[in-house]
């Protein structure tokens, strides 16, 4: 059974520390830092490889600011 995941990222609270990217088990990584910045001037997180996400929530459990919301569906 395969799962597909999706992330909802609170880009205004994200500080762009990139710790979550190291936590992502997929190769290539599903998430990456955007070239755009938020109101505080941080390059926020965005999904770069939506197809690969399995909704494991590894990024969310090490996010220091709790900006990632994870959804997972069977497919």
């Amino acid at each position, binding site marked *: 059974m395969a799962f597909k995941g999706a992330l909802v990222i609170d880009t205004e609270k994200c500080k762009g*520390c*990139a*710790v979550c990217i190291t936590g992502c088990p997929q190769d290539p990584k599903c998430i990456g830092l955007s070239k755009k910045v938020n109101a505080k001037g941080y390059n926020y997180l965005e999904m770069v490889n939506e197809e690969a996400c399995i909704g494991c929530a590894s990024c969310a459990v*090490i*996010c220091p*600011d709790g900006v990632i919301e994870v*959804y997972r569906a069977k497919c």
Partner: protein
Amino acid sequence: MTREDIIKPENLVYKRTPVLTDATMHYCPGCGHGVVHRIIAEVIEEMGIQDNVIGISPVGCSVLAYNYFDVDFVEAAHGRAPACASAIKRLRPETFVFSYQGDGDLASIGCAEVVHACNRGENITMIFINNGIYGMTGGQMAPTTLEGMETVTCPYGRDPKIMGHTMRLTEMLAQLPGTYYVTRQAVYTPAAARKCKKAIRQAFENQKLNKGVSFVEVTSNCNSGWKMTPVQANKWMEENTLKYFPLGDMKVDGKFDPKFIERVGTFDQPNETIFSLRKK
């Protein structure tokens, strides 16, 4: 399957807990404090004790912790969080009381308070964030700074001959009879963060048993104080800090872990400097 099909309330796996307020945390990007705050809040939510928990915030980076938790909080004087927590728990034994301290607060200034609170066996949960540096005041040397590590007040690296040895405070406290559960965890990988959550949950559950102090040390990073990026700091912590402060349980249910006894047996050997100077 499109993104819209997946993002539905029934597919929700992980969401920021409502026990944390909506305030943006003031911590530096990538700081371990944020993860530990979230883990504590999740444990409070899972146990359903939000109306019945009192936290004690320290002085240090986490001095403003009361802004981020939607629970009752007391701000203690520098290092006095265990004394404050003892009083609250004695006066209100039905509440869950936890103190949250950094290493400058707990290991240095509040060393006496924490040792005596653990020796008395107060029925509280203590969370100790060890990042080996005074983060808030600009990166000065703390008792837990590693040998050879550069800080603002030891710019040539910590020399144990002048500045003393790195303090393993959690190992000290584990040997006091008043402690019931003593463990060291970290939050630098998803697996470690999940383990840390289990340990903090256990530490809160232990308050129901009324057996003594539950002490959780969380080895953390301080990327601003260490002058690194968050990812580098986590890597450096894994390579250096965790050698001197290995992760794992020291005391579970009031009994020593066999691996811990073995490790304490090596403490009388001369403390060789295993850490070279970090960078030139």
